[in-house]
């Protein structure tokens, strides 16, 4: 192994090869591509959340010179197959959410396409829609089952332990709302038809083979080639949704005979695409007087939106992470995803784990107060150690670093002293005028790669091609939408080959050229695809060594030599989906966030001032990019905890543009420090663990804990907007010592 060689590129931070194109504006994203003869598509959408479609009439649009496609025109089944087969390409008999696509138009100019879309006549008989997730007995207007998915994980006897009168029982209900991804490049796709009725589809996408599968389902096998354009952010939002958009442009290309492009405008993107699943999570814990967890009982409900899409797997990850990185003998976790009449909620960085860990982290703070402990002590008492056993019975390895993350973060931030200082200051006087300082902390974990046996089923193939000029080309379906995939995977291959980094190239993800190494999701690019590439690199190194290092000898007149390897998970592990027992994930990353805020006692506006992120990434292959993942992900989570609010009115998002859906700006973002810990796993290359999603788990609970430390307002809901905090204050949701803020001088809540 060349891993420890002094020349190893692992652990260096070489500049990313896509950097120059991005800083000069030369990189061509989807909307920048020049396509001769391109037509523009537009989508006719439902204005109501539920109803029966009475009539769809495209004649007026056709009279303008546009082509029109409705559900009646589909060449194959009207379904985008994700897990189940219930997500229609175009609404046929009913609409089930606002902005659901009903018809498509294409025309030679954008302006004409817009006019044609407006000219399509749609008549719908509206029906009463369902938006709540509190009553599973409610029926949907469509009559479909409300329970999209359910699962249960249990170990020991939680209800028995909670019934013991010697146990201190703490109970709470926590919630999180819809969250929008806000990739800065909106969703877009382009389809180019050829004479044989085949398509080339190019998209701003995370998963070329998902799109490939969806289009073959619709148009038949061998009909499509999918390529990824440089992609301006995804965060899960371009995981499953592009199946729909790519199907739409392909349908329009087929109908018109022209290349067709659709790039969503921002408000169409926000209204029509997936969001993070809203959650409501009830947590009951039982403790010994010193804080030790004796029982955990969790009931999680996710709002899945109108269709099943990815909800079963989001729910599964939510349940498997729900008890947090804490040891406990008696745990019961139940989860359900319920249907509502909104756009399907879907993949978003963290994939269910941020919602349940938000609940658990806020609950740990509540339990600490109930027991007279501080946030650090209760976590230190319960954090996982090596050898501890998870609720699925998985024995954690030597790389288990929850306690270490907590220790490093608490020391670096001087957490306990400052938290205590703010607590005392708050108890001493009402704050008026002066901002109230607060500090909060969260501890979290995140499983790397697919859940359970997912990676075994996938057996991701990867290829390396040795080319005549001696270069080595990486051929995988792993896409870069910001993470730095190209350089990081090249570092791994260069390390395996013991060659210069410059010798390794990255092939554009193109289903005609690269194997299906799986979707770019679940923090699996470095850990899973990277592991297989390291294997392939070693195979190629052996071949080269046999040829005495002479490329021409090895190629023997061929253009290239291709080696293939597969990701092989540890054969001794297994996960039983029926019982939820076994190895849920091959590795776990751990993290601890400390966030500092000031809250204005008059307006209850929060300013996030500083943040410290301590994360165990196993092995930091590219420390600069690694830190960038952690910081960017944490800011999204801090936004989720503070300002990213999305409310529904008759099924429509009130915050459906960037003037109303606010994300943190450079002036809202805190000064950040990131500390990378390296406790190598047995899974990824050189011990690397997944990094991309870990930070999504910690930001929201840490910032709301800091607000609580500043104000005494005990908020269990994200986002903790000023309005939310005021409502909590007025409702008496304050910590035992009372609140320090009194916005109206009413001597409230003392």
């Amino acid at each position, binding site marked *: 192994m060349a891993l420890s060689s002094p020349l190893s590129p692992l652990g260096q931070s070489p500049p990313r090869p896509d950097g*120059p194109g991005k800083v000069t504006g030369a990189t061509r994203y989807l909307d920048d591509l020049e396509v001769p003869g391109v037509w523009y598509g537009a989508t006719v959408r439902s204005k109501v959340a539920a109803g029966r479609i009475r009539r769809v009439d495209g004649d007026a649009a056709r009279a303008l010179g546009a082509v029109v496609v409705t559900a009646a025109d589909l060449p194959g089944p009207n379904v985008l197959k994700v897990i189940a087969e219930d997500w229609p390409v175009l609404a046929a008999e009913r609409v089930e959410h606002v902005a659901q696509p009903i018809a498509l138009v294409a025309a030679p100019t954008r302006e004409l396409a817009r006019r044609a879309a407006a000219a399509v006549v749609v008549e719908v008989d509206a029906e009463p829609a369902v938006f709540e997730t509190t009553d599973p007995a409610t029926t949907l207007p469509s009559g479909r089952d409300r329970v999209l998915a359910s699962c249960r994980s249990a170990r020991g006897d939680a209800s028995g332990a909670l019934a013991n009168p010697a146990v201190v029982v703490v109970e709470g209900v926590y919630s999180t709302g819809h969250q929008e991804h806000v990739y800065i490049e909106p969703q877009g796709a382009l389809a180019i038809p050829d004479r044989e009725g085949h398509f080339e589809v190019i998209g701003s996408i995370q998963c070329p083979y998902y799109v490939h599968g969806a289009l073959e389902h619709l148009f038949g096998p061998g009909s499509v080639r999918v390529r990824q354009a440089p992609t301006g952010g995804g965060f899960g939002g371009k995981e499953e949704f592009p199946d729909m958009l790519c199907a739409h442009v392909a349908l329009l290309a087929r109908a018109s005979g022209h290349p067709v492009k659709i790039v969503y405008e921002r408000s169409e993107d926000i209204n029509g695409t997936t969001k993070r699943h809203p959650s409501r999570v009830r947590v009951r814990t039982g403790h010994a007087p010193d804080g030790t967890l004796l029982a955990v009982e969790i009931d999680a409900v996710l709002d899945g939106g109108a269709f099943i899409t990815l909800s079963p797997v989001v729910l599964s990850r939510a349940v498997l992470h729900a008890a947090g990185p804490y040891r406990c003998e008696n745990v019961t976790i139940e989860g359900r995803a319920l249907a509502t009449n909104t756009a399907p909620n879907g993949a978003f960085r963290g994939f269910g784990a941020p919602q349940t860990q938000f609940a658990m982290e806020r609950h740990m703070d509540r339990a600490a107060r109930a027991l007279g402990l501080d946030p650090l002590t209760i976590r230190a008492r319960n954090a996982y150690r090596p050898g501890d056993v998870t609720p699925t019975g998985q024995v954690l390895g030597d790389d288990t670093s929850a306690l270490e993350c907590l220790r490093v973060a608490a020391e670096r931030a001087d957490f306990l002293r400052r938290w205590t200082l703010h607590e005392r200051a708050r108890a001493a006087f009402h704050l008026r005028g002066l901002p109230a300082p607060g500090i909060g902390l969260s501890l979290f974990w995140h499983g790397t790669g697919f859940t359970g046996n997912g990676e075994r089923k996938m057996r991701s193939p990867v290829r390396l091609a040795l080319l005549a000029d001696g270069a080595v080309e990486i051929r995988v379906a792993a896409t870069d939408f910001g993470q730095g995939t190209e350089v990081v995977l090249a570092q791994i291959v260069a390390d395996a080959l013991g060659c210069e980094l410059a010798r390794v190239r990255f092939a554009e993800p193109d289903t005609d050229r690269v194997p299906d190494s799986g979707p770019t999701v679940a923090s699996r690019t470095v850990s899973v695809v990277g592991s297989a590439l390291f294997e392939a690199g070693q195979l190629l190194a052996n071949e080269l060594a046999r040829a005495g290092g002479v490329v021409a000898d090895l190629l023997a007149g061929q253009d290239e030599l291709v080696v293939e390897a597969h990701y092989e998970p540890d054969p001794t592990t297994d996960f039983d989906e029926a019982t939820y027992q076994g190895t849920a994930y091959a590795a776990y990353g751990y993290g601890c966030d400390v966030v500092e805020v000031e809250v204005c006692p008059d307006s209850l506006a929060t300013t996030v001032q500083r943040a410290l992120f301590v994360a165990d990434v196993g092995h930091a292959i590219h420390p600069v990019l690694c830190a960038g993942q952690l910081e960017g992900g944490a800011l999204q989570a801090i936004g989720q905890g503070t300002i990213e609010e999305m409310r529904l009115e008759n099924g429509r998002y009130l915050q459906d543009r960037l003037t109303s859906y606010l994300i943190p700006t450079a002036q809202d*973002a805190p*000064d950040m420090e990131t500390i990378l810990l390296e406790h190598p796993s047995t899974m990824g290359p050189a011990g690397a663990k997944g990094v991309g999603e870990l930070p999504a788990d910690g930001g929201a609970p840490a910032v709301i804990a800091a607000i609580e430390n500043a104000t005494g307002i005990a908020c269990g809901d994200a986002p903790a907007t000023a309005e939310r905090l005021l409502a909590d204050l007025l409702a008496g949701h304050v910590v035992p010592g009372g609140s320090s803020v009194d916005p109206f001088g009413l001597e409230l809540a003392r």
Partner: protein
Amino acid sequence: MTTWNVRVNGREVSVEAPPMARVLDVLRESLGLTGSKEGCGEGECGSCTVLLDGRPTCACLVPIFQVEGRELCTVEGVAGTELDPLQRVMIEAGGVQCGACTPGIVVSLRALLDRDPRPTRAAVRESIAGNLCRCTGYERILRAVEELVGSEEADA
């Protein structure tokens, strides 16, 4: 259609467009300068930022008739054939991830540094407050500027 005369990245150009055509569309579609991006079309995201007579401006909000006879600088005009030191340090320090915000941020920072070669962190934050970045958390962008200013001081 009317003909408009504008100086773009140091060159005089004449371009045909209706008076209310957005500068962003004229740049991208008529002049082939696709470095400026459309992230929202309503002045919130800053991915369309260009310099209008040296001042950062959202190209999605300005109609072409308002720039007649004036000067525009886009991301393509920030550097010559080689990368500008700001661009280089943005890559090295990790200020670039997906790159969708990057052209706008490079343009805004260029304007700041031309005005104030040694900005404080708060001034850097303010200068890009109109440029949303969803990937980086901004920290590595701030550090890129700090590294650049630090290295230029060391050279001085």
